[in-house]
């Protein structure tokens, strides 16, 4: 049992435990927020998960929630539970940079829909988390504000692009965080930090106010340390939005109920498909081992395991690195020094734009913009962009066929455990391989989850287990994920993050 008077223990509780404790009157939101702010002050120097800490406003929100609770007012489930927001979401009154120097100091005049939902849920926002610049990367090394470090080993990457969100969870700086996943930027960081992350069905969460990377791939999603916490946050974020034409006009899935069902009732009758193409060669031994053990747990829970094949997945990475740069090259055109952001002044606006973008964008952003500009240019469109869109159709067909045979599909989330910072920074193609298992879901628009599968025996670093479900069936992820998590936590004796070495605490 958590001792709610001990700030160290407070930050190790789950979000739902915090919510229960507040309802029971054993802890206040102000105490929770202060404990997390203290933790951030103590460890974020070396971790560098946060780009901005929103202490004053978070405490004010917390105090207001405490005051309302004292009157007996009805409050949303997660009211008073602190949260961190990836810097890709615009937040009125808080600087928003998307990890880019070109937006340094920008104060958005409006809130993203998800920001507004978090505020409406009365959740104190601890701050904005670090990310690869404009979400381009798998390691958070491409942030314009310096890399985030993995709390499991500060010399290693926390995944990307949402490395700030994943590291803040693993470092006990926040119980909940918001991420965005264009090709795996929620799931892969979750995998390498021993945390949980979900990419919902495309359109399940409004993108309005999320700084676009690739509009047809981007999806915001919940990040936490437990499946149930992730489910609860998913329900806060989800739902139709008239400001986003691609937003699904359907009810928010019952994620938390599904998670509770999975944990309580096991998986009898569930068919689980192992994707042949997402494993084997190129996957680290310890990753394969922990994945296999995960399958054993699922079998033990009553599930039937089948193998499925998705032959078009071999084109997924190539198609992704055409569609993403193409859309990104257009989405990032607006950073032109006219209405907001950096300006490097020259004597004409044309030269000013060129100089501003040269100075404001990092190398990875430049590489992808140029690649996208090429793929869309006359004469190459059909061969590149056109073919990539065909691959998308083929991948959707592969998924449709696979989901005929299985209720969900599974794979390792990433081929390896976290690598060392700097190791792949000059080898973009090697970097891109981190997302080989997560990208197909984005191309097809389907939901996916990563949850901890244990640590690899060879390096003691976290391994992620990916679950994919058909579009609109996000609840299945939570049912299966919660069942597997329960079995694994029982084996480990606590959440995986609690097995991480303790961070040194600044005095």
């Amino acid at each position, binding site marked *: 049992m958590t001792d709610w008077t001990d700030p160290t223990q407070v930050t190790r509780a789950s979000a739902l435990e915090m919510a229960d404790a507040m309802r029971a009157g054993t802890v206040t939101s102000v105490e929770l927020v202060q404990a997390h702010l203290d933790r951030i002050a103590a460890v974020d120097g070396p971790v560098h998960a946060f780009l901005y800490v929103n202490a004053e406003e978070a405490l004010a929100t917390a105090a207001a929630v405490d005051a309302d609770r004292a009157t007996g007012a009805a409050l949303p489930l997660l009211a008073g539970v602190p949260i961190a927001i990836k810097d890709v979401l615009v937040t009125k009154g808080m600087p928003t940079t998307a990890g880019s120097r070109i937006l340094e100091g*920008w*104060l958005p*005049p409006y809130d993203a829909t998800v920001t507004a939902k978090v505020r409406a849920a009365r959740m104190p926002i601890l701050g904005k988390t670090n990310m690869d610049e404009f979400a381009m990367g798998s390691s958070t090394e491409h942030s314009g504000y310096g890399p985030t470090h993995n709390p499991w080993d500060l010399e290693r990457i926390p995944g990307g692009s949402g490395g700030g969100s994943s590291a803040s969870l693993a470092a006990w700086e926040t119980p909940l965080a918001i991420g965005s996943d264009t090709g795996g930027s929620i799931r892969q960081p979750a995998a390498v930090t021993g945390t949980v992350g979900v990419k919902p*069905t*495309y*359109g399940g969460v409004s993108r309005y106010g999320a700084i676009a990377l690739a509009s*047809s*791939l981007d999806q915001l999603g919940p990040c936490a340390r437990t499946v149930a916490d992730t489910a609860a946050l998913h329900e806060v974020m989800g739902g139709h939005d*008239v400001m986003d034409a*691609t937003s*699904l006009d359907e009810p928010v899935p019952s994620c938390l109920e599904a998670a509770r069902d999975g944990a309580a009732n096991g998986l009898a009758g569930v068919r689980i498909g192992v994707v042949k193409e997402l494993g084997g060669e190129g996957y680290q031994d310890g990753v394969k081992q922990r994945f296999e053990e995960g399958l054993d747990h699922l079998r033990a829970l009553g599930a039937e395991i089948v193998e499925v094949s998705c032959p078009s997945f071999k*084109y997924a990475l*190539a*198609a992704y*690195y*055409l569609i993403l740069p193409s859309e990104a*090259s257009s989405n990032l055109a607006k950073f*032109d*020094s*006219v*209405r*907001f*952001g950096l300006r490097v*002044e*020259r004597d*004409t*606006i*044309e*030269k*000013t*734009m*060129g100089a501003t*973008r*040269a100075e404001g*964008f990092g190398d990875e952003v*430049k*590489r992808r*913009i*140029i*690649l996208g*500009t*090429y793929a869309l*240019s006359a004469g*190459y469109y059909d061969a*590149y962009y*056109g*073919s*990539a*869109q*065909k*691959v*998308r*159709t*083929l991948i*959707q067909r592969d998924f449709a066929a696979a989901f005929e045979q299985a209720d969900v599909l599974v794979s390792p989330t990433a081929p390896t455990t976290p690598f060392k910072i700097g190791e792949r920074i000059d080898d*973009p*193609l090697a970097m891109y391989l981190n997302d080989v298992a997560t990208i197909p879901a984005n*191309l*097809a*628009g389907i939901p996916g989850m990563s949850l901890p599968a244990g640590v690899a025996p060879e390096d003691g670093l976290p391994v992620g287990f990916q679950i994919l479900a058909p579009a609109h069936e996000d609840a299945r992820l939570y049912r299966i994920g919660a069942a597997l998590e329960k079995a694994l936590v029982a084996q480990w004796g606590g959440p995986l993050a609690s097995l991480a070495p303790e961070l040194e605490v600044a005095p």
Partner: protein
Amino acid sequence: MSTLSRADVARLAALARIDMSDSDLDRLSGQIAAIVDAVALVSEVAGQDVPATSHPIPMSNVHRADEVRPSLAPADALAAAPEAEDGRFRVPRILGEEA
């Protein structure tokens, strides 16, 4: 599809309004060419008679009623402008022609 040359990269960078120094081109053009070569794999499906998918979840006719929503307060609209004058965004002189 052939490898992208350094000159190609320079031309594309100009089209994308990103100034590139010689050292930028030295550093980036080889990497970009390598990526182009890798993604050329998709051309294997170019000949296949498969429809293109541009939206992962097929939907259509999502419209907004013609109803006014409040605009930004003028101060908010201009607050982040690198430079403003007379309620307008100020930019250095325009070399090109009007579109």
